[in-house]
């Protein structure tokens, strides 16, 4: 798992053609080859030219925001703005001068309406825990943080439907609904910081995906503010509603390219009383796959997580995480698997899990394993898995890839990259095996073009050849915006462009020569 793209909400759409020409590309061969435009690592974003079509912030703008939001919600203090300008990995950094903290949908609407008329670029921000540079400005965009919109609006006890504002922190929502006997349908390592609005805008996956599915299934309603300030009220709490297009789905996972999510209604599953966690080791990747299949067959109704990590991940976690104990210290194994079951009957579930694991051990699928006897042991197992991302950042530089690949091929790319990178870095493979989602991390002391050249574009081309996705759950952000064509056909990208265009009304009056409707690319919306 990883700190998930949680924050990248909306960026206003911007002109595109100028961008492409500035880089010497013509839109026509977009979507066919890689353009080598991949070096925006580590604060190297400045070479993305600021689009002159956007205005520069002036003191009148600031005065206007102060009238609309009040003094305390308009932040110009350098230190506070500096924090919002950089992502948590320290990889992407903007130079915004202004941070706005709206407290209501009306305020968000006023901000966007004003920015639209003034042609000021904005970047919405949630918990700023994203991994692809989608939550921070590229240049001097106005940052709209939704942290001030953190009220829970209502909870339907019978149906388990939570309605809340976008700036609610996931962990707070989790403890709120748990007190009512329900759980959030998603859980991820960044839960203590990430906002639900960011989760929705990036369609965050996470640890409960295998059981409860994606946010496309769990979000029942949304309130969204469009780029021109229009408030789109789709905040219904109905399970079934077949009246016309289900527009909310466009906003789930669109990374803010179509609007700012301000409120959401979410279906929360009932909290089940019995959770069991096992931490296992396997001798080879084939055993992990067989174990997954066996778990689906034998534990199907109670499996709530099936995570895998290779030996390198465990070594790194033990080295860099404080107070973490290796659950299987006896001897090093090649692969480790964490299985969690959630059900309604403690003794039944435990007996079922134990019987399954003992059988798997006899069949040779599992080399060794431990079953948590209490919640703190279970948390320790999870801490190893969830701490990998945190540990990898401590090494210095980390190149993160979040790929969807057919399960049987999933580990091949890790081995390929390992041989390409050689001694220059450590290659980690882990992820949500049950979802066919690999997190491929390459860690090294510092960022270097030499390492990057060994990884990109190879990793994208390889994934594309397997008909995989280059972004399973992190989103495109700034990091992978240019890479969309590895996973989507040019026709699909074109259609996205035509969906996006009408949402940005000012462009129509501003001149057709600035509009490039054939692309749907997040960073380009933010490009100034």
């Amino acid at each position: 798992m990883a700190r998930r793209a949680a924050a990248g909400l909306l960026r206003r759409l911007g002109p595109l053609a100028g961008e492409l020409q500035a880089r010497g590309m013509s839109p026509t061969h977009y979507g066919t080859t890689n353009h080598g435009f991949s070096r925006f690592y580590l604060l190297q974003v400045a070479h993305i030219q600021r689009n002159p079509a956007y205005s520069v912030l002036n003191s009148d703008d600031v005065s206007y925001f102060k009238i609309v939001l009040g003094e305390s919600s308009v932040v110009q203090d350098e230190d506070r703005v500096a924090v919002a300008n950089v992502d948590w990995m320290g990889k992407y950094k903007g130079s915004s001068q202004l941070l706005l903290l709206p407290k209501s949908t009306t305020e968000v609407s006023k901000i966007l309406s004003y920015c639209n008329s003034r042609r000021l670029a904005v970047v919405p921000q949630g918990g700023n825990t994203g991994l692809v540079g989608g939550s921070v400005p590229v240049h001097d965009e106005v940052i709209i943080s939704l942290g001030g919109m953190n009220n829970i609006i209502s909870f339907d006890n019978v149906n388990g439907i939570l309605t809340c504002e976008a700036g609610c922190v996931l962990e707070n929502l989790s403890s709120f609904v748990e007190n009512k006997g329900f759980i959030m349908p998603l859980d991820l390592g960044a839960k203590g910081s990430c906002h639900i609005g960011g989760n929705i805008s990036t369609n965050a996956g996470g640890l409960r995906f295998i059981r409860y599915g994606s946010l496309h299934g769990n979000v029942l309603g949304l309130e969204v503010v469009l780029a021109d300030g229009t408030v789109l009220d789709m905040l219904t709490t109905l399970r079934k509603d077949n009246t016309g297009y289900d527009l909310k789905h466009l906003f789930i996972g669109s990374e803010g390219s179509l609007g700012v999510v301000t409120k959401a209604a979410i279906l929360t599953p009932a909290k089940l009383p019995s959770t069991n966690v096992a931490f296992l080791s396997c001798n080879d990747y084939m055993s992990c796959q067989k174990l997954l299949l066996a778990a689906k067959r034998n534990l199907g109704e109670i499996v709530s997580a099936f995570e895998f990590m290779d030996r390198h991940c465990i070594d790194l976690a033990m080295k860099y995480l404080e107070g973490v104990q290796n659950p299987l210290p006896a001897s090093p194994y090649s692969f480790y698997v964490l299985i969690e079951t959630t059900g309604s009957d403690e003794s039944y579930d435990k007996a079922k899990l134990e019987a399954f694991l003992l059988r798997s051990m006899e069949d040779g699928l599992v080399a060794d394993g431990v079953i948590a006897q209490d919640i703190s042991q279970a948390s320790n197992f999870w801490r190893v898995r969830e701490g990998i991302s945190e540990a990898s950042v401590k090494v210095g530089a980390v190149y993160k890839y979040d790929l969807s690949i057919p399960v049987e091929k999933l580990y091949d790319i890790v081995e390929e990259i390992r041989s390409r990178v050689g001694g220059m870095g450590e290659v980690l493979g882990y992820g949500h095996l049950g979802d066919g989602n690999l997190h491929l991390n390459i860690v090294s002391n510092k960022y270097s073009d030499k390492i990057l050249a060994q990884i990109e574009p190879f990793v994208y081309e390889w994934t594309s050849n397997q008909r995989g996705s280059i972004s399973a759950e992190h989103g495109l952000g700034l990091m992978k915006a240019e890479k969309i064509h590895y996973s989507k056909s040019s026709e699909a990208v074109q259609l996205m462009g035509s969906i996006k265009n009408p949402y940005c009304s000012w462009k129509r009056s501003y001149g057709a020569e600035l509009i490039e409707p054939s692309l749907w690319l997040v960073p380009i919306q933010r490009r100034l």
Partner: protein
Amino acid sequence: MKILVAVKRVVDYAVKVRVRPDLTGVETANVKMSMNPFCEIAVEEALRLREAGAAAEVVAATIGPAQSADTLRTALAMGADRAVHVLHNPDPARPLLPLAVAKILRAVALRENPGLVILGKQAIDDDCNQTGQMLAGLLNWPQGTFASKVILDKEKAIVEREVDGGIETICLDLPAVITTDLRLNQPRYATLPNIMKAKSKVIKKVTPEDLNVDIRSDMEVVQVTEPPKRKAGVILSSVDDLLDKLKNEAHVL
């Protein structure tokens, strides 16, 4: 030598405890129950002593309803050799108090005849911290409470205790009673091979009557209530406001 370890099934350490609506106790229905963390440390210490060759057998004992067998299975899966389950169905209004528990454990100890009894220093549900001391008193054995280090040396046990200002080292003649503190060790996990082995280990069931122990208590729980809720804080806008509050509301200046 044999080591007897007492283990207790309690509401899991990580569960947020709720008081029952009738105020007779805390809610245990549909709540995750686990081995008391200090008892886990006691089991671990006994196993380490056995592995170091200082003991030949580790026997786990518990007192409680049928489900308490799960806790014994955990002890067996960690590596205990066998277990004794003293069956007792709890009555919320008349909980089993430390004196009754100590009397039962004394009876078990007299039957098993161990060289050492190890208990957790307290259970996290009632926080009594009395059973080990009472057991030592009833058996008339020496006691080493709050142990942070245990060394067995033939007929003696050397116990280090974390006390105010340093470490106290005491030497006990065996047989003795030791209660464990948090830093004594880090308990191991139950591995699959050991869970498998534990399934064939013996849990002997007895009742307090079998042991001729009178567990009637002369104490009654009147009421269990939640601590008062903390009032929400306020955010002040200036230092002057803070000074004003400290002077005129809190009266600390």
